[in-house]
């Protein structure tokens, strides 16, 4: 059996006698016997390392990965390329096995990587201050709702009907504790219809996804105008890679959030991912999570520290506006490496290839009899189709053809006119040949 405890039996006896005990059970004398576990937990015997490896290979075999299926699914998790350097250098064990950088003198590696990450995310989001990460896209939306309600003293959040439905659910879950009132707009031709909430109490903030869950490019200028007319703040949930071709949210948003998984994090069955969070500089004291700042040491040498620490839960306790402690630092470091590898040219190339591949796929799809776009608004990377059969059935049938065809919108995207549509995602990885055979299979299964 693997043994991660170094002590020999002799050593245990010697240590026990040093502290005046005869056996290890006496270490727990303060616990009444009546409460103790009788015998052993029902967990089975320890497994050897090769058997663990075998067990997990067997689990893995019963899952279809994107190496088994050609992936056309997105919805917040994207099959983008990950550079070899990202996986390799990002798994250096000095990064992997360190704790939160509470002692900056021996944590400069993590701190500097996070400082670089913050800089890159601020360039992408177009807002001056970015934190050192949150859990995922959904938790970033929750923190943005908390920030804007605290900043405005209002309790309402208007969610665009085009927001990722899982994220919208998470915002609602947390709102039941904080007392926020969450409303959701309808969609009009796939875009947010802010007028649908006209007449309600002015909210703390509007939250719009860009491009939205259906891949449609929302009009941020309009969202800003609506927010201004209500005296509300604007939260934009953006797609980081798309920002290399689209106007950055910083031009309009007070708070910009994102799911950063596209930036070098594996699909990982949904986690761990990477929540991105940026604000305008005047909101820095309300920023949730860790923030790294540049400073100097006693010899005037440059170094990095966690800063504005008074915002955080371990100091501010019940007056803190966020409880986040553990974040996703390792994913943030991987993203910094991936963004360095992509660089100015690569991120634009990835976005451009993605846009063109998605467009090509969509153009072929709408030639299939009975298949229609749910909206004719401009899209990026994702698009939703009405099919002549149930989208869920289509997804099941296409699995047999070797495709992960997308996400059936019946799963979570309720209360819209698009309930039984198929959401398809195409990234820069998809080849012409893959797309053409996918379309051929789609045509076959919907016929």
């Amino acid at each position, binding site marked *: *059996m693997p043994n991660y405890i170094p*002590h020999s039996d002799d050593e245990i006896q*010697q*240590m026990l006698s040093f502290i005046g005990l005869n056996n290890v059970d006496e*270490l*727990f004398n303060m*616990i009444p016997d009546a409460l103790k576990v009788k015998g052993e937990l029902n*967990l*089975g015997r320890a497994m050897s*390392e090769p058997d663990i*490896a075998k067990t997990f290979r067997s689990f*893995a*075999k019963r*899952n*279809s990965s994107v190496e088994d299926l050609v992936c056309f699914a997105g919805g917040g*998790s994207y099959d983008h*390329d990950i550079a070899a350097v990202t996986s390799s*250098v990002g798994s250096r064990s000095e990064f992997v*096995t*360190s704790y939160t*950088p509470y*002692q900056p003198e021996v944590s400069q*590696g993590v701190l*500097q990587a996070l400082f670089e990450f913050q*800089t890159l995310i601020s360039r992408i989001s177009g807002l001056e201050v*970015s934190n050192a990460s949150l859990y*995922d*896209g*959904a*938790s970033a939306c929750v923190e943005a709702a908390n920030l804007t309600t605290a900043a405005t003293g209002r309790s309402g959040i208007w969610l665009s009907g085009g927001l990722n439905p899982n994220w919208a659910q*998470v915002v609602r879950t*947390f709102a*039941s504790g904080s007392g926020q009132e969450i409303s959701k707009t309808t969609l009009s031709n796939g875009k947010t219809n802010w007028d649908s909430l006209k007449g309600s109490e002015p909210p703390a903030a509007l939250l719009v996804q860009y491009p939205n869950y259906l891949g449609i490019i929302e009009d941020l200028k309009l969202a800003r105008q609506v927010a201004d007319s209500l005296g509300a703040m604007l939260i934009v949930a953006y797609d980081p890679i798309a*920002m290399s071709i689209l106007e950055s949210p910083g031009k309009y948003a007070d708070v910009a959030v994102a799911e950063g998984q596209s930036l070098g994090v*594996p699909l990982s069955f*949904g*986690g761990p991912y990477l929540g991105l969070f940026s604000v305008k500089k005047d909101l*820095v004291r309300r920023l949730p999570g*860790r*923030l790294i*700042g540049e400073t100097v040491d006693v010899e005037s040498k*440059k170094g990095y*520290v966690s*800063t504005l620490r008074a915002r955080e839960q371990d*100091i501010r*306790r019940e007056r803190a506006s966020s409880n986040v402690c*553990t974040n996703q*630092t390792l994913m943030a470091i991987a993203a910094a490496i991936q963004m*360095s*590898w992509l*660089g100015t040219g*690569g991120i634009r190339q*990835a976005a451009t*290839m993605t*846009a*063109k591949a998605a467009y090509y796929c969509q153009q072929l799809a709408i030639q299939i009899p009975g298949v229609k776009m749910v909206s004719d608004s401009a899209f990026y990377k994702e698009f939703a189709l009405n099919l002549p059969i149930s989208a869920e059935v289509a997804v099941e049938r296409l*699995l047999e053809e070797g495709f992960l065809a997308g996400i059936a919108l019946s799963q979570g995207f309720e209360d819209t006119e698009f309930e039984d549509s198929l959401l398809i995602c195409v990234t820069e990885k*998809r*080849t*012409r040949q893959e797309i053409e055979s996918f379309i051929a299979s789609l045509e076959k299964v919907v016929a």
Partner: protein
Amino acid sequence: MISPGAGKASSSPLMGNDSEPTIFEYSHRGRKSWSFADTDIPDIELDSIIPPQYQRQEPLELVEMSERDIVAHFTRLSQRNYAVDVGAYPLGSCTMKYNPKIFDYIATLAGVSAVHPATPASSIQGWLELMVNFETSLCEITGMAAATLQPAAGAAGEMTGLLLMRAWHNHMGQNRKKVLIPDSAHGTNPASVRLGGYEVVTVPSNSKGLVDLEVLKDLLDEDVAGIMLTNPNTLGLYEEEIAQIAKAVHEVGGLLYYDGANLNAILGVIRPGDMGFDIVHVNVHKTFATPHGGGGPGAGPVAVSEKLIPFLPGPRPVRLENDSVLKFGWQQMPSTSIGRLHSWHGNAVVIARAYGYLLANGAEGLRKVANTAVLNANWLRHRLRGIYEIPFDRPNMHEFIASIGKEKRKAGLHAMDVAKMLLEQGFHAPTINFPLIVEEALMIEPTETESPQTLEQLAQAFEQVAKQMQDSGTEIAHQAPRNTPVRRLDEARAARKLIQTWDANQTLQN
């Protein structure tokens, strides 16, 4: 010599204590690392896909680096960082144990790491089974009835617990307002309580460092939704009156929440459920050896007693009835559920590693983990007696609190100085100035994976620090650390003159 171009060289001196340039300083126009597959997609003008009014006018500038420079840079950064793989990390409350490498292997299997979370249940039977098995094991370890794996970390687990409390009381037709927390609690507890819509009521500790039962009873009324406790508490002490505490809280209709930060001490010894807790979160990045990653990812699954099952988040992975074609599937949320807590299914790959750790240990191994963690901490407390003040000098569990003593405090020495002097000795520092109820606290948690030899070496380092303080007062203490990549950093300046992104005009010159 004149450099042929602007920017930094990869082979700038490493082993000295020079600063590492940022990626922005390595950047040089025209350099590139990226390459994408030739996908043969017919070309088309971008303008005909994305209307020009949505397109950005200014290019998005990241960096332009060679792959060689990227590797050199991030490798150097990693070398400027302490880690468990480098040495002992006695950071109290953080359980910095060794992270076995076999779980790195399982996390990279394509069937684990390259699975899209929206893949239909028929094609993720392995993942569903793993999650169901892990939930079952978690319930066995904690003495609970069911679990959710969605919370991404301990703080998210706490929020889950508070929302479950709220849902339970609402279900009982009540709207309670207060949650009790001991004064020794982690900072996340009060922050979560407030975000959960409750008022924090602090329970003082008694002279033994435990919850004062009599004061607690006075604070209890029918407006109390529940209490959040760690047991052992943050002083490393077992709450001896836990059964009476549980009884008193339950008598007013409140619930008990177990903060699992210190679960390592009691694995296979005693279970939160048997102590009377209703809700338990587990920090798998502490107890189950998943690596901390410099601050995350973690995972904070929550287990609950029978009566709270209807309120759990969903969808939940479940074993299906025998007549089903599939063995495992998703159970949709009942209307009583508090709702979804995560974009998808939680930090699944972290959970996979944790499940591997449970398999590797089995029941006997987990018990040995607790035994050895508690033995190591007690041994070190005995070893440091007479060298440091031990405010609660009696049998502790996985960690204990030391302090530098009154005389040294008077001489202007602080827990912070001990921390920095230990860094100079080559060890990571303990947690300092926490819990708040002990002045200049040093919270020391050696974990079970440090050998007796390492413990002795660590003790000698602590001893050396105490001696240096004795001999030279603040002179050496305030200078430390002198041999780290940087020395003490000006944190006040970082806050006052905030530089949170790299800017060529603003960066400090070296």
